[in-house]
């Protein structure tokens, strides 16, 4: 029954064999997961956010556990775009869909990165990380100011013809406004949400648990917030949406699709279960089959509102 379901979706021009991606920063550069699953079982994955130069991140402690969630302040530690293109990408099997994530401190950085990434035929799409919740400059500022965000997206749009996704910050008053800005500035799709800015304190030492003081909250705790934002964004724009935030099970993923997501990203769950992406993809197909949807793409927006039959 599941076999007869068409699992393919189109995420702003990126053809995916199923709607499940793994989220940036939670899937390394892909190869780390090879012992646990065939990477081609995923729709694709978003690599750790890259900067022009390698970057070494925050001092420890960088992570903490919170109720049904985790806090992190890694600060975009990464190997840099050149090592990614020259060392990591070639290690990946050709049938794996790779989306590259860009991070910078000004639109110029971002554009330069996107340009460099666009040269590689192995990069299926580009995700702009406009939302890192704990880097001191860059990232979140773009995700919180509609004018800056618009400039950033336009600038990157100008240098790449690859499918362009924008990853939004949840730390805003109106997510629908931010979604509209992305659409108007030429994005092919939006991904939301990044981690929610948060904090944790150790009462015995009376210190913040993270060296960075502030961090990003991820995991099941934020799922109802992410779901709300995806629903609000889906009302506001017609470009495709990729739902991210606390997805651990196929049912979680289906909720995001019903609320309007074309695809989803699984993040924190990878740490607990390195094969979760494949399991979520299989489970979505099984759900579609059980509920009589011939294509998983038909789940997108299939929420029944109160009063509707």
């Amino acid at each position, binding site marked *: 029954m599941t076999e007869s379901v068409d699992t393919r979706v189109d995420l702003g021009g990126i053809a995916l064999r199923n709607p499940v991606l793994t989220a940036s920063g*939670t899937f390394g550069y892909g190869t*780390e997961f090879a012992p646990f699953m065939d990477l081609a079982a995923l729709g694709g994955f978003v690599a750790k956010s890259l900067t022009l130069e390698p970057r070494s991140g925050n001092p420890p402690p960088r992570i*903490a556990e919170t*109720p049904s969630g985790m806090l*992190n302040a890694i600060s975009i*530690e990464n190997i840099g775009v050149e090592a990614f293109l020259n060392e990591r990408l070639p290690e990946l099997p050709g049938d794996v869909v790779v989306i590259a994530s860009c991070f910078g401190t000004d639109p110029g950085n971002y554009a330069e990165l996107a340009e460099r990434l666009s040269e590689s035929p192995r990069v299926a799409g580009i995700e702009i990380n406009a939302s890192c919740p704990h880097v001191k400059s860059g990232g979140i500022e773009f995700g919180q100011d509609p004018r800056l965000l618009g400039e950033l997206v336009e600038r990157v749009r100008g240098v790449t013809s690859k499918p362009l996704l924008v990853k939004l910050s949840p730390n805003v008053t109106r997510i629908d406004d931010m979604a509209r800005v992305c659409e108007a500035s030429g994005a092919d799709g939006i991904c939301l949400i990044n981690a929610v800015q948060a904090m944790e304190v150790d009462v015995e030492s009376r210190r913040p648990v993270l060296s960075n003081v502030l961090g990003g909250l991820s995991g099941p705790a934020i799922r109802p917030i992410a779901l709300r934002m995806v629903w609000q964004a889906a009302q506001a724009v017609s470009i495709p949406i990729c739902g991210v935030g606390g997805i651990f099970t196929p049912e979680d993923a289906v909720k995001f699709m019903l609320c309007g997501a074309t695809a989803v990203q699984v993040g924190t769950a*990878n740490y*607990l*279960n*390195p094969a979760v992406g494949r399991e979520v993809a299989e489970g979505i197909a099984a759900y579609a089959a059980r509920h009589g949807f011939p294509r998983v793409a038909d789940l997108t927006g299939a929420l029944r509102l109160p009063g509707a039959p």
Partner: protein
Amino acid sequence: MTNSNPPAPSRPLRVAAEVLENAVEGPGNHRLVLAIPGWPGAEPGQFVMLSPGGSSEAERTDPLLPRPMAVYRGHAAARGGRAEVEFLLKVTGRGTRLLADLAPGQSIRLVGPLGSAFAPVVPGKRAILVGGGTGIASLYELASRGAADAEVHVILGARSEGDLMGVDDFEALEVDCHITTEDGSRGRKGRVTDALAELLEAPGPPAELFACGPTPMMHACAKIAQEQRLECQVSLENNMACGFGVCLGCAVPVHSGGYSLVCRAGPVYPADQVVWEGLP
């Protein structure tokens, strides 16, 4: 000053393991024996990630993250072709409390074996193994395998007698055992580093150190090794979310520049690679 290379790590697996035994060992310590299907074996110092929820239980998302636990002792495949692997765990918070509550027959999610191993003891040297608190668990296999090749001394320390783990197992090996407790409730009163200093003063072949325990203790061992120009490998106990190198949460600063991942390059490091100053 490099040690012989550690053995190549086995490919880790993700699997549901079955609890065979879970016995109380003194206040707050538990000996957990798991049957692990397909277990490839582990080298001394390697660890696994255990998900406190159990896998048969209804899905609960709190506590969320798996907990790192050293492989204490592996047994040859025994029941039903599955390997039996032993862990010693100390109840220090919610996660270990839940692990301690697992009953035989329940199943639990595991990822492993993970991380780097101790380089083997060098024949002809005096291998001094120093374990503090939960760090003791990382040293048993090393002591057991090393005893055939070298003169092995073990120093096991904890705050109090009840916090010690596995002492009887170590004493049953052909090794020289020293026990310290901070309150003097068992063995020598004081810290493992006191016993270490004393041992190093005794005449004998050149010594090499293998240490596992809380960061301040590792730092203290590293200092002694530096002062006395001894080889020293330390195993670190950082907080971890994934255990296989993708969350970047377990970073430790290293002299070669930037950060190293304790779950992947570590947990075992040559002590002189770690930048100790300012570590929490």
